[in-house]
């Protein structure tokens, strides 16, 4: 028996590139998109010299679903639940920004109680966003689990409030052009007051645990410094801007909603480093608690919806409007162009965390790989908003 088995030609393999790269000065590393501390699917192409970052190019688009195109193919009201999915941590402020822009576009007035409800919900959103950011950042630094669970315990109370009000914990879809969808259920305001009353005690404890921690100080102070000139020029907004000492808060500048009626201060940082950005969040939460307490006292009874607004078959006049609010992550704006139809001709979202990433390379240059994660965490990004 002479069975023959043909042997295959040896396959030509490409020469390995690894060796040649290691011989060079820089090592290219692709961080992400599945990295646990990139807060979603975010990738950074990093050129390293040893452990030091020499170049960094962010890569976006893993979660891109062309939100703006979908908004242009949907009615004005139809985009409202979809704004929840932008920054899924802060659906209430997304709703408000969109509602505000449409109200500007069509010239709609909002009843007093609805304006107060909006302020209350936006500040509750700010509390839960900032507290979970601090938890996530500690997670990125290596404090696995515990600080995050502390933060989530408090966040959960606020999400419960959202759930009993709107029916959903995160995808609230609560606001409408000309008011809010429904009034608060009985007893909601008392529950909210209780949550806000106990919050400072938690915040004191959390602040003591985090911000005086030796490791946190060593890893955040003098890391990722941002100059105020660059921050203004690069369009940085929100706590990241104010950490550089630039006094710019849309709540104060535009005075949208009923914010001029509340007494609150705008906390400012000195150094613009990561520690200041953390500190900014803690201080802003304290101011938010102050605003909430004032709002609970002042809120009047009354309707929550402007009865003149035609929600269905809503056709604003031909024209355009840009409305913006101070979302927890920065300035969130919506730019709408109406051609007189039921759908917006142009629907644009100005995402704060996307534009805040403009300076990510400037912040990270000269720092180690481990610092990149801390800096990225302190920028506070949510990929649903960055990629849209």
């Amino acid at each position, binding site marked *: 028996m002479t069975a023959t088995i*043909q042997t295959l030609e040896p396959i030509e393999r490409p020469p390995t590139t690894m060796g040649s790269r290691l011989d060079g000065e820089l090592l290219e590393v692709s961080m992400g998109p599945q990295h646990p501390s990139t807060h979603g699917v975010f990738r950074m192409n990093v050129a390293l010299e040893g452990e030091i970052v020499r170049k960094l190019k962010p890569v976006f*688009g893993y979660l891109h679903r062309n939100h*703006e195109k979908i908004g242009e193919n949907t009615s004005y009201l139809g985009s409202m639940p979809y704004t929840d999915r932008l920054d899924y941590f802060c659906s209430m402020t997304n709703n408000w920004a969109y509602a505000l822009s449409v109200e500007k576009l069509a010239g709609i007035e909002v009843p007093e109680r609805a304006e107060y409800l909006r302020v209350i919900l936006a500040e509750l959103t700010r509390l839960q966003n900032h507290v979970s950011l601090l938890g996530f950042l500690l997670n990125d630094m290596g404090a696995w689990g515990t600080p995050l669970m502390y933060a989530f315990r408090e966040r959960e109370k606020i999400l419960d409030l959202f759930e009993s009000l709107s029916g959903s914990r995160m995808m609230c879809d609560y606001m409408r052009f000309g008011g809010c969808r429904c009034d608060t259920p009985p007893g909601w305001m008392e529950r909210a007051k209780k949550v806000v009353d106990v919050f400072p005690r938690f915040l004191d404890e959390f602040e003591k645990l985090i911000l005086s921690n030796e490791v946190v100080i060593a890893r955040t102070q003098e890391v990722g410094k941002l100059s105020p000139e660059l921050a*203004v020029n690069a369009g940085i907004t929100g706590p990241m801007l104010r950490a550089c000492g630039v006094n710019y808060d849309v709540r104060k500048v535009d005075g949208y909603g009923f914010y001029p009626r509340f007494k609150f201060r705008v906390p400012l940082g000195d150094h613009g480093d990561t520690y200041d950005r953390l500190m900014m969040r803690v201080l802003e939460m304290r101011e938010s608690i102050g605003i909430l307490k004032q709002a609970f006292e002042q809120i009047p009874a009354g309707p929550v919806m402007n009865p003149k607004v035609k929600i269905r078959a809503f056709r604003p*006049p031909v024209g355009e409007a840009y409305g913006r609010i101070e979302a927890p992550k920065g300035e969130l704006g919506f*730019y709408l162009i109406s051609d007189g139809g039921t759908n917006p001709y142009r629907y644009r979202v100005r995402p704060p965390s996307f*534009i805040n990433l403009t300076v990510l390379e400037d912040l990270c240059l000269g720092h180690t790989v481990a610092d990149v994660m801390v800096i990225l965490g302190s920028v506070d990004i949510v990929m649903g908003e960055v990629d849209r």
Partner: protein
Amino acid sequence: MESPEQIKARAEAALPGVKIDIVPNGSPSRQLSLLIDNEHALAVARFLRDDLALRLDFCSNVTGIDWLDRTVKKTVKVKKTIDGEEKEVDQTTEEKISGYLEAVYHLYSMTQKHGPVVIRMRTTDRAEGVRLPSLTPIWRSAEFQEREIFDLYGVRFDGHLDLRRILMWDEFVDHPMRKDYREADDYEYEPTPHDDVLERAKQHYAPRPQLDGAEKITATDLHG
């Protein structure tokens, strides 16, 4: 803050050769915008940023718009003499506007705390690879947003140092935010075990042994 008319007058006086048009806005928001010519766009932008009264140092929002070919109906009252009597008659004229792409910038001032001033630039047509001057040298916040316009609308920005696709993948061909964009059926096509790959995969299977006479041996032969 100065009105758009005042800004237009001052900019045209300060920069010779600059022509600025004011674009009306029918919405109650009354955000009028300044249409600046592409040739002098950088100079106007620098003027808006550095002028001491304006100080528009913060470029908040940058976005593109795709305007298709459209007809605009205009009603003008015209005096006509009908039967020897002078009457006012509505006369509608249709104006055809050919399509163009537009870039819109919303400017605010962080030092003076005022805004917005809206400036726009228009391309001549909607062809592939139309060009506009980049304002990233003036405001760095336009860096990613101009890349996004390039990616989704296909406007090339002259003077942008890093103009690449940002949200779509690099191999993608069309510009999805254009109004006449049609989604391809198979734009995520990857050669999975079909045609070429299947051919190549066959190489890895050893062929069946050739006939060597063994199959002819039967049971009767063995015992016979």
